[in-house]
Structure formats: C-alpha cells, structure tokens
C-alpha cells in the first residue's frame, strides 16, 4: 500500500519518547489518561507535544460521517477549531472501543455511531480540557477557574499559550472522574452549519485509501470461484486453461468446500484465471428454489393463522372489529429480495508480520466479528490479531455479517498458503450481486376497518418472511418469545395510537442468506403502514396529513415528535398546493430513535413515465451534531429507498441469482430525483440515528404520490415490474 508519510505518522515513529497526552477509557468504562502508549489504555483522544490532536474513531467511515462527527465532539469539548483535529480509526478492541449499545462488541450498525459515542467522546474531550487547564494553571500559578481553551489556545490571567505547551505536565496527572461537559449554549462546533467533512478533500482527489487500494509488497490477489447456487460443494478443479493466464499462481479448494480460491499476481490475472478454471461441483445439497416459490410461501403464510401474536391482541376480536366496520380497506404487499451493492466491492487483505501477528486490512464494520473468527482460523490469542480499519466504499449493512463472511473467506484463503505473501481477497461486482446476503423477501396483509365517521375501528396486520436474526450470534438481541423484532419493527412500536390493532408474524423457511439492509425491517414495515394510512384516509374522505395527525396524540412525546416532522414537511412542501399536473404523497416514520417525514411530488403517469419532481424531508434526530451531514444522510437515505423501490429486485431461478451486475440491478441515477430539500427540527434531545431513518418513508411517499396522480396503488415492489414506468 502507499505508505502515509504525513507528519503524524512520522512523529509517531520518530518521537515516541516525546510527551503525549492520551485520554480514553479503561475496560471498566472509567475515564483514564496516560502519558505514553500503553496496553492499559486505549485512547479516544491523543494530543502530542506540538499540539496535534487526534481523535481515535471507534466507528468505521462508510460515508455516514463519524470521521467528522466524533472529532467534532472532542474538538468541541477541548476548545479547538475543526482544522486543529485529525482522526484515525481505532484498532480492534471490544472492551474499550465497543459500541455501547452492542455490549462487548465493536461495530457500527443500527444508526448508532453518534448516539452511543455522544457522551463518551465528549467526556474524553472534556477530561483532556480539564487536564490541560490544570497543567496550565499550575505552570502559571493561577486558579484553573480563570482559564479556558479557545481555538487550541489556553487563555486567561492575562496569558495565552498553545495547548501543546501543557501536554507534558498534563500527561503526568490523573484524569478527572467526572469532567464538566459543556452546556449546549456554549457549543461552537456542535450544530454548526459551517463544519465541513474531514474526508472530502481526499475523496475528491484520489488520495483516500479504501481497503481495495491496499497494495502490500509481494501480495497475491485471491478470488473465489463460487457455485451457481449457494450450497454447492466443490469436489475438485481443472486449472489447465487457467495456467495459460499470465500471473496465475495456483488454485485450492476452500476447507469449507464452498468454493475454489484462485491465487494470482494481480486482480486482472485473478479475474481471467477464475474464468478459465473448471470446477467440478456437487450441487445435490444446493438451494434449488425459485423466487416464485418463496413468494408463494409468503403469500400462503399471510392467509393462514400467524405463528406469533406479536402484540398479544385478541386476534379474533380485532378481526371481528374489522369485519363489522362500515368500510374495510384491504391490501396485500410483497417486497422482494434486495442486494446492498455498495460501490466498493467486498475485499480485504491479510498479512502475517515477522512476529507472527495476523494483520487484517479491511473496511471493517464490525471488527469484533473477524477478530473472533481469526482466533479460530489461525489458532492465535486475540492480541496476535490486528485489524486496521480502512475507509469503506459504502456498506448499507453488507460489511457486517454475523459470520464475518468475506473476512473468513480471506482468512481461509490465507491459511492455505505458507503465509510468506499477503493475500488480498477481491470480490467482483458479479460476486457481490450474486453471492450476497439479501434483504429478505417479506409480505404483509393488512385489513383496516373504518367506522361511519371515518375513524379506524380495527387494524389487522399480518407479516410473513424470513427472520434475519434467528440462528445468528445476534439472535438474543432481537428475538424475544420467538418474535424476531427486526421482522416487525416499525409496526409494533409505532407512535400512532391505532385502536384495536393486531399484529401477527409468521417466519418462512430459509430461502437464501439474508441480512440487515439499510433500515432493516423498516424497509417494508414503513411502506405497508404508510400506504395503508393513505388508503384509510382516502376511504374516510380525509386529507392524508390530517388523518395521520389524528392518530398522533401529542401528549405522548414520541407521537408529538412524529407529528412535528409531519407538520414541518407538509409546511415546507406546500402540502396540498402541488403545481399543475403534479401530485404529492406523504409518509412519516420513526426508526432508530429518529423521526422523518417526507413529501414526494410527482408528475407524469405510470403509463408514460412518472417523474419525481422533488422530495421534501423533515427530520428530528435530537441534536444534529453536524447538520450538513444529517442533511446528506437524509438525501442519501431517500435515494437508496426510492432507487430500489423503483426498479430493483433479486430473483432466483433454481436457487441461482438471476441478476449479475449493475445493468440488471440498476442503481438510482442522477436524473431520477430532480431535487431533495431537507429540514432539521431544532432539538435539545440527545442525538439519534441518521444513517438509516431517511430510507423508510421514501418509498411509501412515492407510492402515495403515484396513487394520487393515477389511482395505481403499488403494493408489490419493484414499481417498474408492477405497472409503473419512470420517465
């Protein structure tokens, strides 16, 4: 790889004995500080004697912003400008760098990076500030209360000096037990629109180093020949044609027999050699189902008594309330399998150091996963495994699998060598689309009864699909009394006060490997809920915004926040005042602690092509630490939701994935959405998620807008396969 010759890297090596102040946490969570790098402490912030401040970021950066957000928290509490703080990614250490919401597990997911770091990183920054001020007070012989730090300078008692002057002395002090966090009225950076991303420049000039960009000396590139359908077993191979490829080294059947590893001198040789390799497969145990069978099973489950009564409602009573209502609105929904398809195909590189350490270079979303798996594969204690987190070219959930799938593949590919050469495992786009883990297919059947006055008299909701969490290490987080919460999240705990509601769930059989996908269960639950709210409003002859507000009891804080974004989005979109030839659709949903409402305005027709003219979004995510990052995440979440709803699905024929690459898994393109306008609700609440919450309301808002312009109410996705063309 290109060696980073930055000043920071140089100082780390050359001036290892110079003073440095490290502030972080001990494994028990207590704040601690040290004056030298030590195994006893893994810091959140590091300040060297020339005043260079580095935030140690425990979350990976896939574009969602922690490499800006976490440094913002530290810089705010110390008293720095954003250009006075750098960042590096934390090493793998589940005791100290764990996600506080995940237990002793380091990882990024569930839109929690800021939410779980908010107090922790501010506290570390505040402790560093108090230590630097104490040192300055001692040095100057004044009271600490007279001093402040502003823009990296200690100021007070008529003196000014850079913080670096006090690092040596501060490094000898104990960390304060409970440093004072700044009051929001003192914030200069948190909430500041002027704060820019720390990684924009390197991502616009080619300098950013993603895992795919690792080139270790003498490395080999490995690719895996995979069976047409998952579950195929490699019996052997003939590589006589592969041997004709210049740069081909050798091939070997994976110990799992799930594929054959092709080793080559470079990526292009690996691609060609894999193509030339003839593998003998035993497909007798492979998946054979077609997507139609999966769909049929889900649809049949929706017509049968549910396996689980999620909210313990009297199901018969709800059914009869619906049956006896003046009007009944009924809809059956189907959501297909979806691939994540992050821009950077999966990859990682493994090397063994002279000391026998195994080093993984990876855009590591959940470092603890491969860290644990590698202990098994290499039969090494945890301290002999190092994970270097690189920038990740997107993920949308794909880089976090409970079985650390691609890192394990790379580990197995490496363990089969003599380890003298690093191995870089590379997936192609075809590997990604065809061999991936998918958003499971789900079906919903919803019946809503309305009374004479147009009020909801009963809401019967059935959900069926394959559980994401069952059978994984994450089962205990999400599965309670048999119900995988990720299958029904967004319905069960909806802030709507819907009377007489039942919620049934049926798990369908394992169809293929499934995985969380940006916003997980909310990808389908928000769609079903928000399309039904529109249908019910229409049947009641009421305005969709007003109808929803009637079920948001603002004496309940959650419902009030949901109503707040709904009203703001409606106001900013000019609800009810769509231009000539245009209609609007609305949806509002709470996910990952945040509230998002979106109004989509469309023109055209399903026959001649729908045009998405604009999307207006309102978000309440508590304190918006970096408002422009929040806005960007809403823009991206909307695009991700709408793009897939428009035209994407993964289908299976005889167990094999039909789609291969972007031409048949077509990404959202620049012209698909003409404009997006995001508004942030001012808040004093602690920050909640932003990476995922923009996605859930986007597709139903689009569906509702299309229904308003055409009477085509899309209940099965993708829209392009179900009666809607796009201009």
């Amino acid at each position, binding site marked *: 790889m*290109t060696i980073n010759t930055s000043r920071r890297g140089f100082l780390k090596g050359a001036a290892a004995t110079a003073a440095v102040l490290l502030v972080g946490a001990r494994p028990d969570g207590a704040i601690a500080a040290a004056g030298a790098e030590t195994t006893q402490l893994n810091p959140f912030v590091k300040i060297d004697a020339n005043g260079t401040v580095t935030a140690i970021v425990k979350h990976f*950066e*896939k*574009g*969602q912003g922690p490499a800006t957000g976490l440094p913002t928290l530290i810089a705010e509490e110390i008293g720095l400008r954003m250009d006075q703080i750098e960042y590096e990614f934390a090493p793998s250490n589940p005791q100290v760098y764990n996600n506080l919401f995940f237990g002793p597990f380091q990882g990024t997911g569930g839109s929690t990076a800021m939410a779980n770091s908010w107090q922790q990183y501010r506290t570390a920054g505040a402790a560093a500030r108090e230590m630097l001020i104490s040192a300055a007070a001692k040095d100057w012989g004044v009271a600490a209360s007279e001093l402040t730090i502003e823009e990296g300078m200690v100021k007070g008692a008529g003196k000014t000096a850079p913080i670096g002057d006090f690092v040596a002395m501060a490094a000898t002090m104990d960390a304060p037990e409970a440093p004072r966090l700044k009051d929001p009225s003192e914030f200069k950076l948190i909430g500041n629109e002027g704060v*820019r*991303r720390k*990684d*924009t*420049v*390197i*991502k*616009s*000039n*080619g*300098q*950013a*180093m*993603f895992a*795919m*960009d690792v*080139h270790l000396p003498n490395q080999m*590139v490995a690719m895996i020949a995979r069976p047409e359908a998952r579950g195929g077993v490699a019996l052997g191979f003939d590589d006589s044609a592969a041997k004709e490829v*210049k740069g081909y080294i050798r091939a070997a059947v994976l110990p799992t027999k799930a594929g054959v590893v092709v080793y080559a001198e*470079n*990526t*292009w040789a690996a*691609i060609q050699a894999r193509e030339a390799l003839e593998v003998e497969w035993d497909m007798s145990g492979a998946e054979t189902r077609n997507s139609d069978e999966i769909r049929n099973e889900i649809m049949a489950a929706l017509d049968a008594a549910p396996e689980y009564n999620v909210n313990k409602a009297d199901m018969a009573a709800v059914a009869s309330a619906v049956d006896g209502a003046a009007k009944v609105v009924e809809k059956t929904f189907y959501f297909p399998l979806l691939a994540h398809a*992050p*821009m*950077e*195909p999966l990859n990682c590189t493994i090397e063994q150091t002279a000391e026998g350490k195994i080093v993984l270079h990876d855009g590591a979303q959940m470092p603890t996963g491969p860290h644990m798996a590698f202990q098994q594969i290499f039969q090494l204690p945890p301290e002999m495994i190092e994970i270097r987190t690189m*920038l990740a*070219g*997107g*993920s*949308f959930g794909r880089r976090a699998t409970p079985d650390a799938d691609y890192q394990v593949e790379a580990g197995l590919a490496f363990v089969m060598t003599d380890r003298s050469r690093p191995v870089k495992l590379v997936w*192609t*786009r*075809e590997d990604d689309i065809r061999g991936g883990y998918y958003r499971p297919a789900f079906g919903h059947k919803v019946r809503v009864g309305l009374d004479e006055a147009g009020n909801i008299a009963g809401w019967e909701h059935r959900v069926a699909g394959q559980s994401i969490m069952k059978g994984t290490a994450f089962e205990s987080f999400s599965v309670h009394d048999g119900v995988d919460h990720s299958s029904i999240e967004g319905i069960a705990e909806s802030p709507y006060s819907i009377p007489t509601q039942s919620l049934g769930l049926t798990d369908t059989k394992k169809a293929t490997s499934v995985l969380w996908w940006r916003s997980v269960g909310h990808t389908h639950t928000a769609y079903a809920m928000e399309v039904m709210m529109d249908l019910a409003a229409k049947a009641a002859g009421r305005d969709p915004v007003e109808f929803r507000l009637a079920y948001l009891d603002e004496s309940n804080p959650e419902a009030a926040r949901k109503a707040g974004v709904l009203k703001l989005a409606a106001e900013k979109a000019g609800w009810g005042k769509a231009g000539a030839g245009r209609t609007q659709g609305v949806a509002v949903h709470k996910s990952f602690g945040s509230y998002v409402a979106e109004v989509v305005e469309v023109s055209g027709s399903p026959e001649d092509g729908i045009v998405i003219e604009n999307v207006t979004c309102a978000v309440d995510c508590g304190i918006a630490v970096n408002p*422009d*990052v929040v806005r*960007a995440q809403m*823009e*991206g979440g*909307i*695009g*991700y939701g709408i793009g897939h709803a428009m035209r994407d699905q993964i289908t299976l024929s005889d167990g094999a994935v039909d789609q291969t*690459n*972007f*031409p048949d898994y077509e*990404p*959202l*393109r*620049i*012209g*698909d*959405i*003409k404009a*997006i306008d995001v508004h942030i609700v001012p808040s004093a609440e602690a920050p909640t998620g932003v990476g995922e919450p923009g996605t859930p309301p986007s597709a139903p808002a689009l569906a509702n807008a299309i229904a308003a312009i055409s009477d085509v109410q899309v209940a099965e996705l993708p829209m392009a396969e179900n009666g809607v063309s796009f201009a």
Partner: protein
Amino acid sequence: MALTLKLNGATHTVDAEPGTPLLWVIRDELKMTGTKFGCGVASCGACTVHLDGEPVRSCQTFIEDVEGAEITTIEAIGEDKIGAAVQQAWAELDVVQCGYCQSGQVMSAVGLLAENPKPSADEIDAYMEGNACRCATYQRIRKGVQRASEILEA
C-alpha cells in the same frame, strides 16, 4: 509485453498483455489507486479517466488502444483549471459520502464542463447519467457542477 503509457504527463513502461483493461494497469501496475473498480462493465463510471481530454471508462479501455494517448487520472486532474474548480466546489458543498465513486464523478464533471461550461440541470443529468453513486449524492453532484461552473466564470 512492454508498453509505453503517457499518464499524467509522465511516461511509464508497463508489462501487460493485450486485452488488459487500462484500469488494472493503472491500479495494480502503477499503484495509482484513485481510479476505482466498481463494476468492470462500464456501467458505474467509478473507473473514469481522461484519454486525450475525453472521459472514458478505463475498465473497458484496453491497454493496446491507448499507446500514444495522453491519459489523465484523478491524481492529476487538480492541475487542470476545470479540475481544480470541480474539487473546490466538491469541498464547498461536501459532495462526498463514502467517496468511492467520486474520482469518477469528478473526472466526468470535468469532461462535461470542458465541452459545456454552463450546463443546465437537465444537461448535467444527461451527461452524468453513467456515473452511479450508491450513496445517492446526486443532488450535491448536480449543485457541485453548477458551482464549479460559477467558479470558472468568475
């Protein structure tokens, strides 16, 4: 076989077989990693470079066809007036998210502004259609091109 490439103003001799995509020579041989592999089938634009000033997809441009041509990659586009303006606009608007597609976005944006200094929103959409961004930073790409156009006009 040995081939001579003119890349970012320098001459490189590389060893590559005919049929090798320029992308892999740039990335694996020359170790210039700003040009990205996204799909390999010219469907995402992450690998966009300039060939004699014109954006091309380097994953479908073969090494034997580029001898003698001036190749420019993201690493050097900032030396170009338009490239510098695009990078400045990208920074002002914080266009990037994961950033993996952005080398290609910048290279295409420079190509657009070189032939159309003041593109409309529709013209930007039409020209940039082949550059996918899975993070959907499209709103900012559109505004970024317009902002770069303003910078160049000033």
